[in-house]
């Protein structure tokens, strides 16, 4: 049985940063990159299923869409116990939105034939929360979003899970296999890789594929294959703040003044 876990290399910002010249993203010099936090949980969930099953029963394949730098997040997953990796990239993929990415992942699913796909509920940088769901849509598979608890035995015809709803509600559901689940933070406690794991990861295979290898045409990927396009990224104007000083009485009257001003 095979589980496919698509992961993303996400950016986090330094304290101070600048935008790219085209104004459509942050200058990469000011970003730090790591695996998407949500994906730490989906990877862990997959590895747990693998470990609970007998030796050699479950294969966990991690994949990402991204340039060579993204290898490090795959290695991280391999270090924790995933079996092999797939990285899809070529220049034509630049500018792909979440729909185009989902289309690429769907092609990998066709190729790998997993029974289960676990994605993160969303990415910690762009936060669209669409890729997993779009993937299920393209594949026509049943899916569960924002999954906070999962019960699944490899080979079983269906899986049971709980998902988080708004307002503190939870929903219990079960769906037939094959399925796509998007995993919520906190579903498990992601492990850290051991030194042995990190070393072993270096010898695990990572396949590199281009969009044509997957049978996708140029207009299905990149900006051409996307439904949306980022026009501008910017820091919205911040609210004002001020240091209120003086005696307690002076401070109180200043606070009162501010409240009056704000209320208008």
């Amino acid at each position: 049985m095979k589980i496919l876990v698509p992961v993303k290399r996400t950016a986090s910002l330094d304290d101070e940063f600048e935008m790219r010249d085209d104004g459509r993203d942050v200058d990469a010099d000011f970003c730090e990159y790591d695996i998407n936090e949500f994906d730490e949980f989906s990877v862990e969930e997959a590895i747990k299923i693998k470990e609970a099953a007998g030796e050699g029963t479950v294969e966990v394949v991690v994949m990402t869409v991204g340039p060579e730098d993204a290898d490090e997040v795959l290695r991280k997953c391999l270090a924790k116990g995933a079996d092999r990796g797939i990285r899809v990239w070529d220049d034509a993929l630049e500018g792909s939105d979440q729909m185009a990415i989902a289309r690429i992942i769907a092609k990998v699913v066709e190729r790998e034939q997993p029974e289960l796909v676990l994605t993160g509920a969303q990415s910690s940088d762009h936060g669209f929360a669409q890729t997993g769901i779009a993937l299920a849509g393209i594949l026509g598979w049943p899916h569960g979003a924002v999954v906070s608890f999962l019960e699944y035995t490899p080979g079983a015809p269906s899986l049971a899970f709980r998902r988080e709803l708004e307002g503190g509600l939870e929903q219990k559901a079960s769906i037939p296999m094959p399925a796509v689940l998007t995993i919520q933070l906190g579903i498990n406690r992601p492990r850290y890789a051991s030194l042995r794991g990190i070393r072993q990861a270096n010898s695990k295979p990572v396949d590199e594929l281009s969009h044509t290898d997957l049978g996708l045409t140029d207009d299905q990927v990149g900006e051409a294959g996307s439904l949306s396009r980022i026009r501008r990224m910017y820091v919205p104007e911040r609210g004002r703040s001020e240091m209120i000083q003086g005696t307690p009485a002076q401070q109180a009257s200043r606070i009162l003044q501010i409240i009056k001003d704000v209320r208008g």
Partner: protein
Amino acid sequence: MPLDAPVSRSKYDVLFEPIQIGPKTLKNRFYQVPHCIGAGSDKPGFQAAHRSIKAEGGWAAMNTEYCSIHSESDDTHRLSARLWDDGDVHNLSAMTAAIHKFDALAGVELWYGGAHAPNMESRQTPRGPSQYASEFETMTYCHEMDIDDIHDVQGFYVEAAKRARDAGFDIIYCYGAHSYLPLQFLSPYYNKRTDKYGGSFENRARFWIETLEKMKVAVGDECAIATRFAVDTLIGEDGVEIERDGVKFIEMADPLVDVWDVNVGDIAEWGEDAGPSRFYRQGHQLPWQKFVKDVSKKPVLGVGRFTDPEKMAEIVRSGQMDIIGAARPSISDPFLPQKIKEGRIDDIRTCIGCNVCISRWEIGGPPMICTQNATAGEEYRRGWHPEKFPKKGSDDAVLVVGAGPSGAECARVLMERGYTVHLVDSAEKVGGHVNDVSSLPGLGEWGYHRDYREVQLGKLVKKNKQSQLALGGARLSVADVLDYGAEKVVIATGSHWSTDGRNALTHAPIPGIDASLPYIATPEQVILGQKKIGKKVIILNADPYFMAPSLAQKLHQDGHDVTVVTGVELGRYMHFTLEYPNMHRMLHEMHVEVIGDHWASKVEEGRIELYNLWGDGSERRYNGPGRMPRNPNTSHTWHNFDTLVVVTGRKSNDELYRGLKERKAEWDKNGIKDVYVIGDAWAPKLIADSTFEGHRLAREIEEPKAQFPKPYRREVSVFGTPYIPGGFTDIRYEV
């Protein structure tokens, strides 16, 4: 000011403006005031290295510790510097030479102690303004000076000043803080004279003024004359008060002084100057110090555990003082000025104000240590630089289990050296028990110890993607460690408080003490709020440091009635950290009852049986085997409690280490070359010593038996080499 205003890079510029002090120029406003380190003139290499590392780190001036001007002022058992003879000149010139290499100034604090100097080595009798018994030192009286004596002693200052100049010092102090001689003349607390050196302010000031005049004549053209002045001795009108004699003396002596170094307090409670963070915040002396600038035309410097560059800049900018004096912050981070200059504020190793540095001087002169800076005192003898590290000696990857003081420091230094390190802790945060301790009342600043390591580790793991900070995971088992894939394993799993009453007095558990019972709690259980604490609390203490007093304070603040029963002097080590007086004032304020000299024989639900430690009679005799050589102790009495808190002793968490040791045969096939234990896991100790052990191992991990330290360079006199040039060393009797 709006919070999002752009940060000017020049906001600390005022701190980097040069300033003239007499014939010398300070290149910036960072000034290491005199402080002891345990080197004096006896360990010139230590002295030179400890001061010059700060010169390298950007400080404009470094001073010696107090420096005796004559054998009549001998502080043995404590360790001062000395300028008694040419031997001392030779040794101290190592310090001035090392400092001058960095374009910084060297200062010396000329000291005469009066009755506070016990003269246990020289066996001379100190002289003083009047005859009094020291309130600081046991059993020393001084001889009351007549006019000849006054001239003698003033001559000592002058001769020592000349030797200081010859040794290469740029700044020469006349030390009149901490109740030493010039202040003894000024303060009516000591000075009861009726001649022209006593009585009126002018008369009381005369000794000091004349001494400064004589020093200035002797060396003032070549050296800056400084004086350290406790502008308020904090005992009201019986002593010196800032707005009376304080400002008057500043006005009077101003023409003779090139730079003022002002603080408050006396010697018996000098924790009012070197204020522990438990009681005093940064800048705590400013309410007194700020008067000085109003009356002085000379540069003014002062201390107050200044660690925050914003505060320092504000003090200089607002004209409260011209120069930032620092003792402890300079020990904790010798590179403080450079880090501020480079805007590396988050790299500053902030002094936590624990005063463990001071404890060593108070104990009587072993080398100073620092909780934050493990390299303090190790610059010369171990060759440790606080900011530079030797490149790694192998490609071994290291697993460090436990991110407390020892493990975090070890991992940090290993990573600085370029090693791949995995630092693993089941807690969510770096810091180990410092996280608990810093949550106790008044100890918040101790958390800087964790913060520094947390920030540095965060930066270091980003530099080496193979390294990892693995927090909040499951505890590693012996099998996990064997299987981890590390060539070297460092166990830093800390210690815990005894749960069965095991203690330093009986070395045995106390019947009935079991911290799994609902009415008995360990310090950890109290701090983490894991137990319901009843109204009436008895703390049973056999620990000589802060835990019992701190828990008493915490529980009192939480509304409990607290009694401390203690078999050792409560907070004994806090004498040495200068926390003792205010700690006792506080316990008194809180009506915490302290039952001293008692220990416990057994505990039942709701009550504890205590006995007086001295209740077994003063007569000792042989009573035959199986019989005590003293009377049976019949002083036992029962005392009621709702909750008993047991601060009886600590025990290493060494299961993981011992488990690994049992499976030593499997190390090799798992690729493990060695396993080490550091910090409390080896044996419970001060945070400073745990930090040191982690640091030490990280620097020496390539050594064949790295569990144990390499020998350090000892500075001791060499037989056959006379200390004073031209002297002799063979045994000769005067017959």
